[in-house]
């Protein structure tokens, strides 16, 4: 299809214009764009809080902000980044856009519920931002009682309502994905021909559905206790603070798998495409996603080893936490094995993917440190834990998100992006990230506690290193924002399949028409059939194929 013809072709972006066509759309591709813009907005708000934290920590004394403000800053950094960026980012942006395309459907099962999910996300965001404006919340993103329910006099109730509402946005997205993947696959698209991106989102949706309600109820109980004086977590009445921790971490540990599983899905798409080779051990990678989702629900107690939890519970959770590391190891080995004898081309998405594998390996292995009871007694609630989860969230999840955005940008916008600048940004982010968070491992083992506004002078040197790294990381993140917006206008037009990739989404024009496919394709190739790249992946039956 020549470039000039492509301009007049009708697709989901020029199908209709005006604010109403965007704010009342039920097209999963447009809702993905609504999410992309709002998620980026919250990412840079969270990033702004992080910059203030890093500037404050340049000096041992608290000279940039008072203690009260610092506590609110790290709380809002945590709440914004986790609930408003990391959890929705890949599923709501890339998942919403791609899952119908990848399984050959016209849209998700419940388009209106999908739009409702975005509105709930925005309403939750507004609640949380008004809470921040009205004085902020200083309980930490963990809201531990009795501080959050009795002693804190900050905007806890308002923030809790915000997170409660946004939680339902995740639930509805998860519900949509599960039903769509079960009932709306194109003929020939069997479960074991599904792209691993879809498998990982199916596993993530299980966590959305079965985890999110528990944090909804635990935060509701905290709000009830604050507003109406119900004595659920009140130690005066014999309330046990550990009950809240159990309820909170029952969701919040699987939540970290919500953040990493979609990223793994993206990587399972990038590695085969850029090494032009079928993924190594497809079944094992697919089932390890499910294993991570299920085992992820059994391990939350490792957040409570030193919290006064009984020693036997600690032993059970430590054992199970070791098991949950195995599926992640399997994935890393399979990705690396996929590169063997491949035809590797280091485009920007591939740089992000390889960076992901390296950093995720380090993040995962440091997970073993905190899962081992003996060492966790020392490193719990120190900067070691901060470094561990930032290696997973920033080093892996955000890297995968950026890799995915770059990989599917031509499909979403019909435009390429500036390749050299993109590779440069990936390197800057990789270096800035390591300089920011590796020193924190050392600080952690030295014993610097987390959430400290003031720290002993001997920790200053490493903190200065970390803050320096944070400034490089900030530059690294601003670059893609600039050149991707720039690319919308000025980059050359990308054809239907820029990377010669496999997958149904590449069998339809870029940007895709509103109904994704003129005729529902019938899949005839297994997933990632790069070894027979020249053979067509789908065939089109003459009349409408009955649903198999």
């Amino acid at each position, binding site marked *: 299809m020549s470039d000039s013809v492509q301009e007049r072709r009708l697709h989901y972006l020029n199908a209709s214009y005006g604010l109403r066509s965007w704010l009342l759309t039920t097209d999963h591709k447009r809702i993905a764009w609504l999410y992309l813009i709002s998620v980026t907005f919250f990412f840079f708000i969270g990033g702004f809080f992080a910059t203030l934290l890093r500037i404050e920590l340049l000096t041992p004394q608290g000279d940039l902000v008072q203690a009260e403000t610092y506590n609110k800053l790290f709380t809002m950094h945590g709440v914004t980044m986790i609930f408003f960026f990391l959890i929705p980012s890949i599923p709501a942006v890339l998942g919403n856009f791609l899952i119908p395309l990848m399984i050959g459907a016209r849209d998700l099962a419940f388009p209106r519920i999908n739009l409702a999910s975005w509105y709930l996300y925005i309403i939750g965001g507004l609640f949380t931002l008004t809470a921040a404006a009205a004085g902020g919340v*200083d309980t930490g993103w963990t809201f531990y009682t009795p501080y959050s329910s009795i002693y804190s006099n900050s905007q806890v109730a308002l923030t809790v309502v915000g997170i409660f509402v946004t939680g339902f946005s995740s639930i509805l997205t998860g519900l949509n994905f599960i039903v769509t993947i079960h009932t709306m696959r194109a003929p020939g698209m069997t479960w074991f021909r599904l792209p691993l991106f879809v498998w990982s989102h199916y596993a993530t949706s299980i966590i959305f559905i079965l985890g999110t309600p528990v944090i909804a109820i635990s935060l509701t109980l905290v709000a009830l206790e604050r507003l109406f004086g119900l004595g659920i977590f009140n130690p005066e009445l014999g309330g046990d603070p550990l009950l809240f921790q159990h309820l909170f971490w029952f969701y919040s540990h699987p939540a970290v798998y919500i953040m990493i599983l979609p990223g793994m899905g993206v990587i399972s798409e990038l590695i085969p495409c850029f*090494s032009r080779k079928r993924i190594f051990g497809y079944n094992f990678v697919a089932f390890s996603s499910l294993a991570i989702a299920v085992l992820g629900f059994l391990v939350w107690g490792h957040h409570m080893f030193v919290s006064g939890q009984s020693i036997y519970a600690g032993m059970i959770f430590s054992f199970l936490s070791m098991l949950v590391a195995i599926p992640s*190891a399997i994935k890393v080995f399979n990705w690396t094995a996929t590169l063997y004898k491949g035809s590797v081309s280091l485009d920007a998405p591939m740089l992000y993917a390889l960076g992901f594998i390296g950093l995720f390996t380090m993040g995962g292995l440091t997970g073993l440190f905190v899962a*081992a009871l003996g*060492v966790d*007694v020392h490193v719990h609630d120190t900067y070691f834990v901060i470094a561990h989860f930032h290696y997973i969230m920033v080093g892996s999840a955000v890297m995968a998100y950026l890799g995915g955005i770059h990989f599917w940008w031509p499909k979403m916008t019909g435009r390429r992006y500036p390749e050299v600048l993109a590779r440069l940004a990936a390197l800057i982010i990789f270096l800035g990230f390591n300089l920011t968070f590796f020193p924190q491992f050392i600080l952690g083992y030295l014993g610097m506690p987390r959430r400290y506004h003031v720290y002993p002078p001997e920790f200053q040197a490493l903190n200065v290193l970390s803050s320096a790294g944070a400034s490089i990381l900030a530059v690294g993140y601003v670059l893609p924002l600039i050149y991707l917006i720039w690319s919308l206008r000025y980059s050359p037009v990308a054809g239907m399949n820029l990377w010669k990739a496999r997958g149904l989404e590449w069998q339809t024009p870029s940007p895709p028409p509103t109904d994704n496919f003129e005729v529902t394709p019938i899949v005839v190739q297994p997933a990632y059939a790069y070894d027979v790249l020249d053979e067509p992946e789908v065939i089109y039956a003459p009349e409408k194929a009955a649903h198999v």
Partner: protein
Amino acid sequence: MFGPNLPLFPEQASTLAPRVDALLYFLLAVSAFFSLLISISIVVFAIKYRRRSDSERPPLILGSLGLEIFWTAVPLAITMVIFVWGAKLFFVSFYPPPNALEINVVAKQWMWKVQHPEGKSEIDELHIPAGQPVKLLLTSQDVIHDFFVPAFRVKKDVLPGRYTTLWFEASKPGTYHLFCAQYCGTQHSGMVGRIIVMEPPAYATWVGGGGTGGSTTAAGQKLFQTLGCATCHLPTDSGRGPSLVGLIGKTVALQNGRSITADENYLRESILEPRAKIVRGYQPIMPIFKGSVSEEGVLQIISYIKTLTPQAGAQGRK
């Protein structure tokens, strides 16, 4: 390691520290091995198999069951070793040895109040003898805090409404950081202190000299009299309340058919909320003391009850 202003490794100042560091070295070795294995293979594969021409068609490799089993079994074996090693260390750091020196610590929003058995009390400081196990009985008056001494590699949350215990044996005299490691409000980062480890003779003179009040157990005994506990709790089981002689560690049969090991938490609950666990064969007539006894008072009574050993016989003999 690099002098005072750029330390890269914490001091080892307790008997537990070298053991925790040994597990750390093992974990560092495993992590270094696998990180290098993965990153080097990525770099090697990316260079060796770089795309030379767009028409390259790599071979079809679906996977290999043998490899999958291999890199499931090996990580599983390693993680099990880590688990057992970590669990054993945790067991050691969980149960204090019987002859430990007992010190009560009450945490309050943003300060540590320490109470030595001999009567001396301190704020945000803890003097202890080197070479002797020290058991801390921790409780909080408001929110959750956390008693964390990096140099000893130990930490334990301090909960309101309950006791948690923490023990260590300092091996090297000196001054070490004490941090509060559980977020507890505005001055969380100000709730720090110092652990001063002294040679045993120096500690003896320090603790002996100028005790502010009588010893904790003496204060406990005085409370035991003034609150009228002695009227029901006699040395023998003949009184209206069960005998408290040698109670710690004993299994107590309760009225609802269950039985419980008597520990400090059981004693505290039975003082503040007696009806929660009624001993079999006794009437629930004990009044509630919640609100009429402070945290320190309950700790003092408990330390006194611990001195009621069978050979000590009737109270007041000590």
